[in-house]
């Protein structure tokens, strides 16, 4: 158990270091100097040089990264180039918006996708199964940003049923503002989950222990929900853990298109202005989120499956 957590922690640190370094390297490959961007095209070379030294940009890349992680160890994520505010404060301010969006998207997708998958498996080749299958494939093959654009055009601009942009204020208003983004982020996951739950459900329902349960006259309901689902759900839980990375990218699109605050909107803006400290802070937080999500999915798996629990 402790060995498991130790190993997970080391792995998590490695993932964070590698991901943050890689992304930062990519950012440096993009042409454009933050000093020039901030100080304007008419800044003197001396001014620019002074600014670069202040930001540590005069240092070689590996020294910059080492400094970043060293400060991070001391709980300092850096300061914003423009405002001088602490990056941690800025990112944490935006984080709840993104977390809410991801959580709501995944929850509604799971609440719909898992039962759909179950029933498609039980009533195989029924109308429900066929419609679900067709819709799943169509929805999965539409990119999230296309979905977001269309949703925006249809429901907000054309029909005016729902607000188009912003996050709203107060609970009800926020909820209303959440509907379209959460719909676009979650909708392809309904399809994914329905397909995966269906496939693993069909597999489990064909296993001998299910036949044995039937041989003992257990009710179909008991068999499906008590005997098969806890096993059939395991691949979906793993998928969800890994899928949080994709959800973050879908959330970025949604935040940009719906002009919502959030880490996604923040990162796009920061990349645009070569605001390295903010970009690093966002990447750090989303990577940590990803690591956390896989950990949670492992723990949920362990909760459901005694074999996984004991191998922890």
């Amino acid at each position, binding site marked *: 158990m402790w060995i498991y957590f130790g190993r997970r922690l080391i792995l998590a640190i490695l993932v964070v270091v590698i991901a943050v370094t890689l992304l930062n390297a990519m950012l440096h490959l993009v042409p454009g100097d933050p000093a020039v961007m901030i100080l304007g095209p008419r800044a003197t070379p001396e001014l620019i040089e002074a600014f670069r030294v202040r930001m540590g940009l005069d240092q070689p890349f590996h020294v910059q990264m080492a400094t970043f992680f060293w400060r991070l160890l001391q709980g300092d994520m850096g300061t914003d180039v423009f405002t001088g505010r602490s990056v941690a404060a800025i990112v944490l301010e935006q984080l709840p918006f993104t977390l809410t969006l991801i959580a709501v998207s995944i929850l509604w997708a799971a609440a719909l996708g898992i039962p759909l998958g179950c029933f498609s498996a039980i009533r195989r080749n029924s109308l429900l199964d066929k419609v679900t299958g067709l819709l799943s494939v169509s929805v999965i093959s539409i990119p999230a940003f296309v979905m977001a654009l269309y949703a925006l055009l249809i429901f907000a601009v054309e029909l005016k049923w729902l607000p188009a942009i912003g996050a709203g204020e107060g609970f009800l208003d926020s909820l209303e503002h959440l509907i379209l983004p959460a719909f676009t982020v979650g909708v392809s996951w309904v399809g994914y989950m329905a397909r995966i739950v269906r496939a693993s459900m069909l597999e489990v329902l064909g*296993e*001998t*222990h*299910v*036949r*044995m*349960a*039937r*041989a*003992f*006259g*257990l*009710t179909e309901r*008991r068999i499906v929900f*008590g*005997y098969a689902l*806890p*096993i059939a759900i395991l691949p979906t839980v793993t998928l969800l853990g890994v899928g949080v990375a994709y959800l973050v990218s879908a959330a970025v699109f949604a935040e940009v298109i719906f002009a919502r605050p959030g880490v996604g909107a923040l990162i796009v803006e920061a990349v645009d202005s070569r605001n390295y400290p903010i970009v690093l802070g966002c990447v750090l937080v989303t990577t940590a989120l990803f690591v956390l999500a896989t950990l949670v999915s492992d723990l949920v798996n362990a909760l*459901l*499956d*005694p*074999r996984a629990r004991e191998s922890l």
Partner: protein
Amino acid sequence: MAGAASPPESAAEGSVLEVSGLSLDFGSPRGRIHALRNVSLSVPRGRIVGVVGESGCGKSSLAYAIMGLLAANGEVTDGRLLFEGRDLLKLDQRELRAIRGQRLSMVFQDPMTALNPVRRIGELMTDIQYRSGRSPAEMRRRATEMLERVGIPDAESRLAAYPHHFSGGMRQRICIAMALLVEPALLIADEPTTALDATLEVQIVHLLKNLQRELGCSVLFVSHHLGTVAELCDDVVVMYAGEVVESGPVREIFHRPSHPYTQALFACDPGRIKQATRNLPTIPGELPDLVEPPSGCIFKDRCPERFEPCDRLKPPAYAAGEGHRAACHLLSPCRPLGSGPAGEGAR
């Protein structure tokens, strides 16, 4: 102990199960596989009937047909399955479910996959008593008692264990405990020892025999192993390629095997009763194609004694002794002596 609620008496004298004229097909891309054709057998009350035959001859299909658990592509096309006087084939799913796990239960071939991996043994064993009206404590007490009876040490604390905590032999004991816990009138055991090693096989067979005596239930014991059948069963049904070729009391079959297929099974199983060999009996040749079963005798392609009528006529079940029947032209009462050019069709 078994049969506390007196079931409707069977029409046939004291038979728990009467299979008559059972035929079933499996749909397949190549056409319909006629897996069972006109199979008849009966399981008398309190007796153990063995079903033997090579792998692929339809033993499991028979067991699943009785349980009503055929694969989705399987379909019974003809026959009757009289269980305690009621035709199982005429019951709907709800009525069948009322019988399964109360009057009828089953032990599967592979104990490694038969138990749900995410439920504790105690849960599995109380789940199956859900219709008994007993309190949870009482259900657990009975489960513990039955586990002790099948030889699980420290049974009470093992209720909290998961199936993967047990070895294959122990898991099969648990499966047997579950199957007998519901006090069935008939237990179907589909090769319960095939997945186990030889010493375990002997132990499980003795366990089954003792428990059957104590509980007084009937058993339909499926095996491809004659030695095991000899040890355990009262009656034997020999199946070949989806047909019953010989049936009768165990000592009749063992002292006077009358069908060439049964004789071939013996020839391939020299250890016969005592030595439990792991190897499948191998007889030269292959099972016929069940999509288009050959006309005449089903065994003719591999039969060393094939003679003139075997190609044309399907042999009926001739009497071969006391309660002993075999479907072979050699037993025809009107067969002139020495007319069979033996070995013609044999290899």
